C-alpha cells in the first residue's frame, strides 16, 4: 500500500482490523502489545497536545521506544517538523546537531536533555512534515538531510512492493531510528504492510531479543547480522533478513542462507529515504531497482538517481551542498560506482566519494576528518584508510607514533566508537597520489 502520512498508514490498517497488532515492546519489565487502533489513538492524543507547537521543529533523541515512535508520528500529525537524533551518540555530537537544526523543542530522556543543557529557542527553516536525519559520520559539521513523511512512506512502499510482509509477520526492529535505514526498514516497512513490529529492548538485549520476540523478519546492518550469526542467535521462525547500509561479506550472507532464511541485500542512501534497490534472487549483489526509482550510470561510472517521491528536499540550510548533490538535469549523485546489466539489475562496484563506510552502516567523510587531523598534526602529510573494517591513519614525514597518538586524542574523543583510529602507520616516503593529487588509499 502507498501512503502519504504515517497517521494515514496507521488509520488504514486500524480500519481493516482494529485489533491487529502494530507494536510489541517491553515496558516496566512487561511485554505489551499495542494494536493499530490503539497506536492511532495514542498518536492522535499526543498530536492534540503538540498542536500549539505547529510550525516548529522538534528534536527527538531517538531511543527506539514505543513512546519515541508515538512522538515522531504525533509531531508530524500536529504540523511540526522532526529531527531524529541518536540518543546514544556522544554528547558533543548531539549538541552540535541540536544547534544545527535550530530547535528549541527536545524530546528524550530528561537527564540527558539536562546534561546537554539545551534551552535555546530558535526559528526553524524546516517545514511541517519535514523529517531531518543527520548523515552518519559528520560529527564535526552537523549536516542534516531533509526528508518528508511522504518520501519515507514512498520508500517503505518501495520495500513492501519488492519484499512484501504479511499482517501475520513480525518484524524485529533493532536498528537506531535516527538512521534512515533503521527508521524505514526497521519500522515503516512493517507498518506499511500491516505487519507487527517488535521493538528491541536496547543494546544490552541484542543477545536475547530474537529468542524473546521470535520475529519472522529482520532488518540489520552487516555488523549486527555478523554478531547474531556468530553467536547463533537467529531464531528458527526467522524467514527473511534484509541487510543493508554497508558492504556485506558474501560468506556472511551465505551463512544466513544456509539456515534456510531468505536474504535480501538493500542499497540506498539517507538522501533517497533509504532503499533504491534490493536483491530478490539468489545473487545478493544483483539488485532490482525499486518501483519509484530510476537509475542511470554516468560516464565515469557513478550511479545517478531520479526518484521524485523518495529523494531528499536538500541539505538543511545548505543550498550549496544541495546543488552539488544533483546533476544539472536533476539526478542525484550517489557517490557510488555501479553498473546495470541487460535486465536493468544494479551491481555496486565501488565508491567515488571520499568516505569510508562501516559495517554498522555509519560513514566517515574523509576530507573533513583529514582536515581536522591535519590541524592537530601540522607539517605532516596524512591520510585515513580502512583496514579490516577499521580506520587507520597513515602519516608521512618525520613523525613519532606515540607523539601522533597523543596529539590526535581530542579528535578521537569526538568520534563514534566505530570511527576511532585503530592503528597508525608511519611512512618515510610521501603518500602515494594520483596524477590529480588524490591519495591512492588502496596502496596504503
Amino acid at each position, binding site marked *: 500500500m502507498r501512503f502519504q502520512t504515517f497517521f494515514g498508514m496507521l488509520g488504514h490498517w486500524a480500519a481493516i482490523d482494529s485489533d491487529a497488532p502494530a507494536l510489541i515492546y517491553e515496558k516496566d519489565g512487561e511485554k505489551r502489545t499495542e494494536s493499530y487502533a490503539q497506536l492511532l489513538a495514542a498518536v492522535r492524543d499526543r498530536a492534540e497536545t503538540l498542536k500549539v507547537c505547529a510550525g516548529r521543529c522538534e528534536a527527538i533523541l531517538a531511543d527506539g521506544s514505543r513512546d519515541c515512535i508515538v512522538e515522531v508520528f504525533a509531531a508530524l500529525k500536529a504540523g511540526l517538523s522532526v529531527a531524529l537524533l541518536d540518543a*546514544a551518540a556522544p554528547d558533543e555530537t548531539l549538541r552540535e546537531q541540536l544547534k544545527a537544526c535550530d530547535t528549541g523543542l527536545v524530546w528524550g530522556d530528561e537527564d540527558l536533555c539536562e546534561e546537554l543543557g539545551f534551552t535555546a529557542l530558535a526559528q526553524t527553516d524546516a517545514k511541517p512534515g519535514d523529517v531531518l536525519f543527520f548523515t552518519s559520520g559528520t560529527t564535526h559539521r552537523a549536516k542534516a538531510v531533509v526528508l518528508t513523511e511522504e518520501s519515507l512512506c514512498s520508500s517503505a512502499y518501495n520495500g513492501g512492493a519488492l519484499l512484501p510482509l504479511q499482517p501475520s509477520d513480525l518484524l524485529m526492529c533493532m536498528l537506531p531510528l535516527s538512521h534512515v535505514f533503521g527508521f524505514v526498514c526497521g519500522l515503516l516497512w512493517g507498518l506499511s504492510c500491516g505487519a507487527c513490529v517488535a521493538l528491541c529492548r536496547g543494546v544490552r538485549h*541484542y543477545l536475547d531479543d530474537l529468542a524473546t520476540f521470535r520475529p519472522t523478519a529482520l532488518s540489520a546492518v552487516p*555488523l*549486527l547480522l*555478523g*554478531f547474531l550469526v556468530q553467536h547463533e542467535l537467529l531464531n528458527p521462525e526467522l524467514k527473511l533478513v534484509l541487510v543493508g547500509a554497508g558492504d556485506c561479506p558474501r560468506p556472511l550472507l551465505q551463512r544466513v542462507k544456509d539456515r534456510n532464511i531468505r536474504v535480501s541485500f538493500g542499497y540506498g542512501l539517507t538522501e533517497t529515504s533509504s532503499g533504491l534497490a534490493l536483491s530478490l534472487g539468489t545473487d545478493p549483489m544483483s539488485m532490482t531497482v525499486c518501483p519509484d526509482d530510476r537509475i542511470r550510470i554516468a560516464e565515469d561510472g557513478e550511479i545517478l538517481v531520479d526518484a521524485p517521491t523518495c529523494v531528499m528536499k536538500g541539505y538543511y540550510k545548505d543550498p550549496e551542498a544541495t546543488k552539488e548533490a544533483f546533476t544539472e538535469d536533476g539526478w542525484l549523485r550517489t557517490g557510488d560506482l555501479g553498473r546495470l546489466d541487460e535486465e536493468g539489475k544494479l551491481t555496486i562496484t565501488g565508491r567515488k566519494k571520499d568516505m569510508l563506510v562501516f*559495517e554498522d552502516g555509519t560513514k566517515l567523510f574523509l576530507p573533513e576528518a583529514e582536515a581536522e587531523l591535519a590541524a592537530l598534526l601540522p607539517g605532516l602529510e596524512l591520510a585515513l584508510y580502512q583496514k579490516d573494517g577499521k580506520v587507520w591513519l597513515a602519516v608521512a614525514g618525520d613523525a613519532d607514533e606515540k607523539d601522533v597518538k597523543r596529539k590526535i586524542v581530542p579528535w578521537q*574523543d569526538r568520534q563514534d*566508537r*566505530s570511527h576511532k583510529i585503530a592503528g597508525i602507520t608511519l611512512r618515510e616516503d610521501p603518500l602515494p597520489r594520483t596524477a590529480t593529487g588524490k591519495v591512492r588509499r588502496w596502496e596504503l
Partner: protein
Amino acid sequence: MSREELRERTIKIIRDCVPELADTEITEASVVNTDMGMDSMNFILVICKLEAEFGVKIPNKLWKKLSSLGDVLDALQKYGA
C-alpha cells in the same frame, strides 16, 4: 572485591569474548576501541557479560562514556561490583 581482582576478572572476560586479544597487553589505560580494536558489537557483548558476571547494571546512557578499561572498572565499581 578489590580493584585488582575486578581488573583481572574483567580482562579475562574481555579475552574470552574477543579471542584476538589473547596476546595483547591490556592495562587500565587501554582504550577499548583503539588499543583493543574492539568493534561496537563486541563492546556490547563484553559489557553484557561483565554485567552478568558481577550482577550489576550500568545505565545505558553511561555506555557511551566508557572509553578505557579504567572507565569500565570505575562504572562496574560504582554500580556494585
